[in-house]
């Protein structure tokens, strides 16, 4: 029907009586950054979990490049071209920065069943991992264990791992969280260029970043999308102002 890279239709998920996701239909078009905003507990992460496959919806569907992936696992969706970053960094903490990036490269290669030759001697893996680290500025920290990284560096590594996948779509859950003004600005600049490689569904609380980056914004409140539109449209929308933006609009 559309040329959307990623699309949800009537997605619904309840936790007991709580409707965490309520008839959500969204799409992510080529080349765009589609921001998903909403107050704490609105259901953004729950929606991301259903898009990425970690959580089964009660109803509705998820399509990736036109194919219905609703019943497919996280791994299958990743192999089909979906790369997500986590709100709370999910990295192998004891491993080095390089090893975490190499894991992404290994996933992208689809060939984990190699038991004897060291990763360090696999030039293709190494180059792909290092290229991603360089893009986020972590190349000098390649040998540092993740546990020794600053919070901001971990956010960068999250993005670097997603980059190694060379995906068809990015789904990012609060990549700026806890970055500080400076880090936020740098990440904003980086994501700005990234949309040309693959569109980004961006969950973000940082309104400066959202307003600077988003081609379109969807506002989620209590599991429902109450508005979708350009930044200007969203800022003007009275329902959004009432429900969410309040005085900051």
């Amino acid at each position: 029907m559309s040329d959307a890279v990623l699309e949800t239709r009537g997605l619904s998920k309840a936790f007991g009586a709580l409707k965490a996701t309520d008839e959500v239909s969204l799409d992510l078009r080529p080349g765009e950054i589609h921001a998903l905003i909403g107050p704490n507990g609105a259901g953004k992460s729950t929606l991301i979990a259903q898009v990425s496959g970690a959580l089964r919806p009660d109803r509705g569907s998820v399509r990736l490049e036109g194919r219905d992936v609703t019943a497919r696992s996280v791994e299958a969706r990743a192999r089909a071209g979906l790369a997500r970053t986590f709100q709370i960094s999910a990295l192998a903490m004891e491993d080095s920065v390089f090893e975490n990036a190499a894991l992404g490269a290994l996933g992208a290669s689809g060939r984990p069943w190699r038991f004897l030759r060291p990763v360090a001697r696999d030039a293709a893996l190494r180059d792909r991992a290092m290229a991603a680290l360089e893009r986020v500025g972590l190349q000098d920290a390649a040998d540092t264990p993740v546990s020794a990284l600053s919070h901001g560096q971990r956010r960068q590594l999250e993005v670097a791992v997603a980059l190694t996948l060379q995906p068809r779509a990015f789904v990012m859950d609060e990549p700026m969280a806890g970055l500080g003004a400076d880090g936020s600005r740098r990440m904003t600049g980086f994501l700005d260029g990234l949309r040309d490689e693959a569109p980004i569904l961006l969950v973000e609380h940082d309104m400066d970043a959202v307003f600077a980056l988003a081609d379109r914004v969807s506002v989620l409140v209590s599991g429902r999308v109450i508005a979708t539109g350009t930044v200007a449209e969203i800022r003007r929308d009275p329902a959004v102002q009432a429900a969410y933006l309040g005085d900051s609009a």
Partner: protein
Amino acid sequence: MIRENVLNAGILLAFAAVPLWALWADEPFTITLATRAAILALAAVGLNIALGIGGLVSLGHAAFFGLGGYAMGILAHHAQTYAPLEIGPLTIAGTKSMPVIWITALVASALVAWVIGKLSLRTTGVYFIMITLAFGQMLYYFAISWSAYGGEDGLSIYVRNGFPGLNTLVPIQFFGLTFAVLLAALVLFAALRSSPFGLALNAARQAPARVAAVGLDPARLKLVAFVISGAVTGLAGALYADLNRFVSPTMFSWQLSGELIVLIVIGGVGRLMGPVVGAALFVALEHWLGGLTEYWLIALGGILLGLVLFARGGVIGLLTGKAGPHV
């Protein structure tokens, strides 16, 4: 890194030196103890693949140790009674050849590990520990009731099985053989750990959601690790049975599964040489303290407690001054 390599080489040299000294001093029993330590180390190197890299706390690895033991016992029993083994339409001659027995032990343990792993890996944490324990106990009781192969009394094999080019009845030669197998397993462990598979498995222990998010299936990685792990422990079981020329259901006992975990924790979880140091200490303490008092396990418990509380990397972590990668 360098220091750990130097330490590792030193440990192996010391390990090999003990039976050589015993040969010179004419202390054959010490050679037997060293052989026992090498075999327990081999079993624990196998467990260390699942436990140390994959984070799978299996309290049922005696299942594979016992299977390896019975693979040896059954094949050698049929060889010494000249009665072929009949499974349905198949007739298999018994054998006294170690290579054939080893392959049987490896294959049988791998197959059973696949089944146990497939069923156990649906669970995690304490449930995984309990379900692997339950499978181990199932095999234990099965062995007890298996009267064709001695039931509770087990099976005695009169002459140690043979290996081409060696006289396995000579203690130092049998030690050399087990030590070579241990070295091969250590090479395998080191290779696995730094391979693409090892990278993914190591990450699956720490951050399974991340592994799935890059398109790899953490459960399958762990299953394959469990199969390799079980196979190595099964091979150790075959050697252990050959050391004692005897197999019995106690090879399946949960105490043995527990001891394997204990000696990995003592040596250092996930460390290449952790199982070797742990097994050597375990056998040495068992011999010396066990000769002094029945309560030697209390001393072992004290050492274990001290290491867990104050040196989470086990003895290897303590000696290299690096905290363990994990416990």
